[in-house]
């Protein structure tokens, strides 16, 4: 395994790891076309300067998968799931036709990880017109909070012919078991609304949580 501090194109299949100091959508979009196995965001100033990764890093790289380890602030700003799915298509994990469903399910999982996990925000407040301004203000405050801003989200994908698994893990309080029960579109204060987890259930073969409830495991037939 190789670790580099800049975008040097690695040889395919070497499990090369890219450590990124700062990146935008265009830059990361170009880097996704290179055969890195993992994309790790370097610690920000004020953090421990040792580069770390999450619990699925080694197993994902060893399996020839694709791996992101980003701060909440960066994952919020980037088109994170679009870029990750660019990488899945480039690596042959999904076809162009399968991509839309995989991207939407992954996007909803990452949104839950960031908003409800790392930023600790309540979806009922978000969906209530009378509390919408309050929700937006709280979201802004939480994104500016250096501790929450630096909390990480891990996206780890592995695949075999006919099968794709993506695990999205945050550093929040974790899902309650009942929270991932399949549900129908629900009526809220605003009327009919599609629920993010309902979309995930509709687009995946199965959805489960990992042992501590912080990881959402999405399985797709491909």
């Amino acid at each position, binding site marked *: 395994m190789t670790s580099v501090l800049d975008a040097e194109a690695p040889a395919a299949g070497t499990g090369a790891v890219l450590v990124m100091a700062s990146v935008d959508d265009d830059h990361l979009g170009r880097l996704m076309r290179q055969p890195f196995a993992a994309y790790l965001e370097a610690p920000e100033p004020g953090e421990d300067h040792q580069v770390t990764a999450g619990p699925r890093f080694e197993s994902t790289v060893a399996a020839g998968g694709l791996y992101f380890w980003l701060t909440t602030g960066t994952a*919020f*700003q980037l*088109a994170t799931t*679009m870029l990750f799915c660019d990488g899945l298509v480039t690596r042959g994990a999904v076809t162009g036709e399968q991509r*839309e469903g995989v*991207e*939407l399910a992954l*996007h*909803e999982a990452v*949104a839950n990880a*960031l*908003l409800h996990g790392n930023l600790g925000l309540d979806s009922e407040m*978000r*969906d209530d*017109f009378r509390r*919408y*301004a309050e*929700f*937006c203000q709280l*979201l*802004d405050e939480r994104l500016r909070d250096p501790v929450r801003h630096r909390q990480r989200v891990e996206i780890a994908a592995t695949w075999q012919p006919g099968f794709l698994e993506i695990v999205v893990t945050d550093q929040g309080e974790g899902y309650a078991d009942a929270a991932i029960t399949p549900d129908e*579109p629900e009526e*809220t204060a*605003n*009327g*009919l*609304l*599609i*629920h*993010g987890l309902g*979309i995930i259930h509709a687009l995946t073969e199965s959805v489960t949580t990992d042992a501590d409830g912080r990881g959402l495991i999405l399985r797709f037939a491909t």
Partner: protein
Amino acid sequence: MEHKVHNTSTGQEIMLRGRFTFADHEGFRGVVQLMDEPGAKRIVFDLSGLEFVDSAGLGMFLIAREAAERKKLQLVLRGAQGQVKRMLDLGRFDALFTIQD
């Protein structure tokens, strides 16, 4: 998501472009505030430049709908294509909004 506002004889036409997601709450709050401007009767969201919408984006359309109802404005969603159109269909938005091709 980027947006551009055109004033019309009956209100405003708001063109949305790019990806409309959970990351756009703060920007969309400004769009909703446009409905406070006096004299408007009709707000049209032009979605022809929108490439992707998630459940949070659908939720923001519902916030806009409630804001419009309070101001007695007609709200129209126009020109959705591809994934955006499929999401509006999935959410049965035709029962809630005036949808135009």
